């Protein structure tokens, strides 16, 4: 796999609002942050705090109403639909519910993001390589329904890596998994980060997961209420202890 450099993400006074009838809900309310290249950042906070919406904004599957969002110095909020689609091709996205296509095999699910583009043979080889990397070699022809939850999420991670992303976004990637499997998935993500140097931004409400990240950003009512650098001169045990004290 190609060694890459992770993306740098900058948000400045980012706002995203939703309307429901006459009611207006501000899901992301003036968020400003900067995420360093190659870092693993956890977004935490209670339900409705804006974690997923912030991820969606960074992943360009939702548009900000106000503010600025740059990824590798590209202003995302100014991109048109076609450019946004091209941007998304360089971003990996992992969902809580995996969102695998049930009618496609594991291999085809991994290939799906690049299916419309030429290079079928290369796609297959890379997909097999990725599946091997996530520990699913030999299950290429299985259907998603034939896999466990952890395996399905591994497939989703392999699919997210198919486009050689410099930025990986994960929305509660372990939310539907038991703690052991969740830990394995995080191990996998961290290992991939080590191997490819990509930037990872994940939303989670699990302390154990958040504690293993480089940085923790806690959101509340769409705002950043806490921003903690977890690598600041502490070893892993301290990190865990501190994490256990964290109010997630």
């Amino acid at each position, binding site marked *: 796999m190609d060694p890459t450099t992770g993306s740098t993400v900058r948000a400045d006074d980012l706002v995203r609002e939703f309307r429901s009838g006459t009611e207006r809900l501000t899901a992301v309310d003036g968020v400003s942050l900067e995420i360093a290249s190659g870092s693993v950042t956890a977004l935490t906070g209670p339900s409705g705090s804006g974690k*997923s*919406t912030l991820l*969606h904004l960074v*992943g360009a*599957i*939702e548009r900000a109403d106000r503010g600025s969002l740059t990824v590798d110095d590209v202003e995302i909020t100014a991109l048109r*639909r*076609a450019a946004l*689609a*091209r941007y*998304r*091709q*360089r*971003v990996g*996205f992992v*969902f809580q*519910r995996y*969102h695998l*296509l*049930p*009618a*496609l*095999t594991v291999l*085809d699910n991994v*290939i*799906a*993001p*690049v*299916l*419309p583009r030429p290079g*079928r043979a290369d796609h*297959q080889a890379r997909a097999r390589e990725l599946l091997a990397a996530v520990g699913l070699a030999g299950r290429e*022809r*299985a*259907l*998603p*329904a034939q896999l466990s939850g952890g395996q399905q999420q591994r497939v989703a991670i392999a*699919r*997210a890596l*198919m*486009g050689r992303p410099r930025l990986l976004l994960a*929305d509660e990637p372990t939310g539907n998994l038991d703690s052991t499997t969740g830990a394995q998935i995080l191990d996998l993500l961290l290992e991939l980060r080590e191997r490819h140097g990509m930037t990872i931004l994940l939303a989670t409400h699990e302390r154990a997961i958040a504690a293993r990240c480089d940085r923790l950003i806690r959101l509340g009512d769409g705002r950043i209420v806490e921003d903690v650098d977890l690598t600041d001169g502490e070893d892993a045990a301290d990190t865990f202890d501190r994490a256990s004290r964290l109010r997630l």
Partner: protein
Amino acid sequence: MVGFVWGQLRGRAGRSVALLVGVLVATTGFVVLTGATTTSRLAVTGTVERNTRAAYDILVRPKGTRTPLEAERGLVRPNYLSGTYGGITTAQYDQVKAVDGVDVAAPIAMLGYSTTSIEMPLDVTEAVDPALDRQLVRIDREFLAERGLSHVPAQPTYVYVTTHPLAYPIIGDEYYPDAVRYTDGRTYDTDGCGLLPRETLPGGRTAPICDLQVEQGNAMQDLSERQLWEVEAFRMLPGGRFLPSTVRSTAEPDKPVPPVSRLTVTVRLTVPLLLAAVDPAAEQRLVGLGDAVVAGRPLATTDTTVVTKVRGGLSSRTLPVLATSRPFLDGAIRATYTRFPLNRSIAGVPPGELAARLRGAPATPAGGTERDALSAYRSQLDAGLGPRTCCHGQLQIVVQPGQAAYDQSPDRTLRVRPTPADPAVYGDSQDLVTLPRPWLSEDTGYRPLTQLQLGRGAQDARQWQAVGLFDPEKLTGFSDLGRVPLETYEPPRAAGADDRSRAALGGRPLEPSGNPAGYLSAPPLLLTSLASLPGLLSNGSSPQRTAPISAIRVRVADVDGYSERSAERVRLIAERIATTTGLDVDITLGSSPAPQTVDLPAGAFGRPDLRLTENWSALGVASVITRAVDRKSAVLFALVLVVCALFLGNAVTAAVRDRRAELAVLACLGWPARRIGALVLGEVAALGLVAGLLAVGLAVPLGHALGIGVDWGRALLAVPVALVLALVAGLAPALRAARAHPAAALRPPVAGALRARRTRTVAGMAVVNLARVPGRTALGAAALAIGVAALTLVGAVSFAFRGAVVGSLLGDTVSLSVRGADTLAAVATVLLGAAAVADVVYLDVRDRATELATLRATGWTDGDLARLIGYQALFLGGLGALTGAGLGLGGAAWLVGDLPAALVAVAAVVAAAGVLVTCLTALVPAGLLRRLPTAQLLAEE
């Protein structure tokens, strides 16, 4: 319950409106189209006994031409064209020509009888006694016709022969009758006797040798040809030669007139010839008229009446005609000569006193001769075509005979009713009459005569001049077997039906006599072009000016000999002509001679009562226009409902699937199954009811706009139709909803896959998606297939088989012809089918929205997603269209027992059109992709 139903419909307003529009379109379309189900059908009865084919297969005549007797006996009388003068407009002719499947449409406009004069030279040399100083030869003429059975003496005519000098008038372009110079150097007043020779009487005085020419010439309209007579003067020279009486010209007054050794005088017979106008090009294709020309040139479509202005403001119009070389004349003149020696000249004797002066005078029989009209006509033809030779005739008076009337005897013998003659029909003093009436015009008539209303007055001279001669025997286009009296140019002949009649006729058949009102009527013997008619008719008041055509003979394409298939094809074309033009249509294919016994009452000139056998034409089949339900159309219209039911069924099924959670909750709350089913049915029924009521209001104006009769009674049919349609479509989903288990709510809207399929392309993914919902895919494809099959059949009939296909189905000969309403129904079915496919695609987009959102989140562009949806529409449309085209193609091939390339081409075009329309309609659901709430969908799951 009602409130619940209303709440559901309002809650899904967009979907409800879509279903409402579907039912509305189908119901309105069905109700309007059924207004065109009842159609005019040409019903045929009877079977053909002889394998015959005439030059044409269909005879089109003006409405009401078919006589009750013809209708009763399934016959067409001989010379059916007689008595039919116009009635068909050129616009109707164009309509007939435009009917698909018509190979040749040959119009014929009957105009009536013109007359011409046939000259019969009589050599009276032997009747002259060269020893006599002066003598008169009386020629007693007897006119004969109808195998000599009709005969009548005429006024005698005279030849005056003198050995004394005669003086002859000398005239130029202009002369004054009261002062005409003669060859004796003197000037005489010719007002009394005209330009006749003068003989020198004892004492040096001269006197004219008068006859009645001038007096009779001024009253030609009152005279029959047998009343005409003249005195023709000759000078007998020493040596037995004769000097004819010739008017000298002022240009060469002293030019000697050569003497002749034979003394020949000319008697004339006025012969009626039937004149008709045809389209020379069509006639050439029908019977090879151009190829039958034996002298001169063929008639051209561009031949028109030639108008020339002559001095004194007189205009002369000459109609170009093709004259027959076989005039079918059964007439003769028998001449008997009697010589009267004269001891003094007849010069100066008033014509009226001549016969009295000869009475009691010594006379010597001097021979005689008989000349028949046919030989005389041929002799004229031998002289060659030209204004002074052959062949020409007058058109001042054109007489139109009507139809003969019959009384029927108990033994089915027909007795012809005599008709009083009307001499006035041959013109009066206002007409410029140039020929006397035929002598037979005084014979007993059997047809009422009228006059073609042409311009009147002495300033308008009309005549015809032959540009060529045609031989009817050389006309082709029909076999001997098919040579029935329906043929336009066949002379009608009637043989004696009993010994007495056969003996009277001398074993020969009776032929047209030369009496325009005679029973046997001649075929058209003079043909002009249709283009000449305006020039002939323009000054008159004949109704033929606007509707000149009397009959159209139609040959149908792709008919070769008689067979059931051919007969059905001819019936179809005849039906189309009848319904398009409203004219009387008879199928002549398979017609054969049908001898009828006819009693012909005795004529005024000696012909006795005759019992004749006349060959009428028995139509192969009797045809009558009836109103009947077009079953093919009814099936097509019903298909509109079937396709709509499939469309609706799919939509209601999807709606029930959407609401499975809600229905499961109702089931958990204790709603009985039948009530849940009734809820679904109630919603669908409410939609049907509203759509039906709206259709009632739409059907009447829409029918009016399309020219289809839809009354309010028929429009009200929309309510039950829409209701039943909705209930039928909703029944299966309602039953499924009623049987739904609460746990059904937990199932995903779209199933996964039972087995893994390799999907390495976007197109492959589209195929997988279709395979995941096989029922829905099958319904959509079936809806389109039905439409495409119907349109393929309609298209095949319209284009590959020129609007009508005849074939055999389960041993029966059947035919399909396409009407506008059929095409409309087929197109509507295809459009509804395409809408059904689009709905399938829409449901797929909606049900798999999360999957599509996932693909978008992983980098698929809008174009990539649209391509995926486009492929689904293409494959679904292709499946339906190819299946439908195959079914339509197979059906048509089965029907006709053949698979012509044109049929395959039509099927291919219809299938391609079906796919194209489907892809276009799929643009609507594809457009929804842009509005897909990606983030929301991904977060919801």
